[in-house]
């Protein structure tokens, strides 16, 4: 279908975005890469009165690696993250996840910050950010604040972001050298909407895992940090019983809902399969 009518305005600076948000209130939507927003407009799932195009605002894009963290500008595209040698070296989890994000043409346009702000529970970056304990930099007319990824996602497409605020950057602490990561996702076609996916990271010392973090996509209303499943592996040398205990604990952690392709039971089964694969990869 075609998008419903709306007005369009291009912002050229952050203060201009704040002004426009103040003027248009709830009817306004920020347009970044547009790869989810325009699809939802075409499907008439959303009917904003005005789109504020922020893609030409300078300073909101780019990847900066420092000693303790990686900072990713909100307008950095998925393709830029995917192609970045700095990301591959510093945060392999993101490099592992990037190829699962839709298709090449969409990765060229879609943005990291857009995916976070959209808060699709089946999206890859939100799960990665929860696993990596990222912080989000949020700006408004009154200043700047940071919020933890683990507190940011509040429900289906619902976040801590207020109507007068803009997500401007993502800050991810660097894991140490002994950390391993794995990103796994099951989809009907490569690049399609994930049925269930898992962003996993842990410290591996001779096959013993600690600081284990398992964040699922497609397994609830938000990215889901599987705390019980994590606790079942913490400090253990990986073995089949440990994997089984972790997979079993997912019943307490996840809350997948069925859809036209997969029932909730199927998704829970798939989550357990991915848990086994991910833990095996982390311990290898």
């Amino acid at each position, binding site marked *: 279908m*075609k*998008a419903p009518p709306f007005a369009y305005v291009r912002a050229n600076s952050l203060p201009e975005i704040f002004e426009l948000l103040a003027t248009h209130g709830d009817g306004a939507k920020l347009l970044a890469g547009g790869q989810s927003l325009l699809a939802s407009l075409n499907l008439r799932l959303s009917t904003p009165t005005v789109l504020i195009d922020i893609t030409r605002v300078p300073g909101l894009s780019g990847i900066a690696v420092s000693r303790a963290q990686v900072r990713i500008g909100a307008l950095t595209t998925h393709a830029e993250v995917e192609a970045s040698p700095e990301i591959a070296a510093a945060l392999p989890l993101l490099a592992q996840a990037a190829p699962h994000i839709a*298709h090449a*043409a969409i990765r060229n346009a879609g943005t990291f910050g857009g995916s976070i702000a959209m808060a699709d529970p089946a999206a890859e970056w939100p799960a990665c950010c929860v696993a990596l304990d990222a912080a989000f930099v949020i700006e408004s007319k009154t200043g700047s604040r940071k919020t933890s990824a683990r507190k940011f996602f509040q429900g289906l497409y619902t976040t801590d972001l207020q109507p007068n605020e803009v997500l401007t950057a993502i800050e991810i602490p660097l894991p140490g050298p002994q950390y391993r990561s794995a990103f796994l996702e099951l989809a009907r076609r490569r690049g399609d909407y994930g049925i269930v996916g898992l962003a996993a990271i842990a410290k591996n010392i001779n096959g013993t895992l600690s600081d284990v973090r398992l964040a699922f996509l497609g397994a609830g209303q938000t990215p889901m940090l599987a705390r019980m499943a994590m606790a079942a592996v913490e400090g253990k040398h990986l073995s089949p019983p440990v994997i089984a205990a972790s997979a079993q604990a997912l019943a307490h952690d996840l809350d997948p809902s069925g859809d036209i392709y997969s029932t909730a039971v199927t998704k829970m089964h798939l989550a357990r399969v991915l848990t086994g694969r991910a833990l095996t990869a982390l311990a290898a």
Partner: protein
Amino acid sequence: MEHSVETTIIVNGATVRRRIPARLHLIDFLREELGLTGSHVGCEHGVCGACTLRVDGRMVRGCLMLAVQADGKRVDTIEGLSDSGELAELQQAFHVRNALQCGFCTPGMLMAAHDLVRNKPEATREQIRAHMSGNYCRCTGYHAIIDAVETVLAAHRKGGMQT
């Protein structure tokens, strides 16, 4: 608030200036305003790849971009790349390998394949499959398309074809 915006787009090298309704997708602008109907419209939500275009050198979905967003940008369509000869080898390979039947997906397939030829000439068959995964074809069963792309990449590696 403006519901239509004065917009300048460089389409296949020619500068086009129009007042464009904000809600008009780039693909519909090209097809309906400019008569460039080589790129097709399929699903209109980014799934099928029939509307694949090149904007400022990067492959994008024509149905997930507003025409007004292309202001000041260079847009290349299947017509432009076909006329310039850039696609000739791929077109030949698609023909020889029987990589099309009804032809609906073919413009998008050629655009996606060309993006690979330009940017990842060393791609393996598996990487070709991954790269082309965003384009649906309901006729060929895909293998012939992958064969055609592989043929062009292999010929390039032997130095037999020039881009």
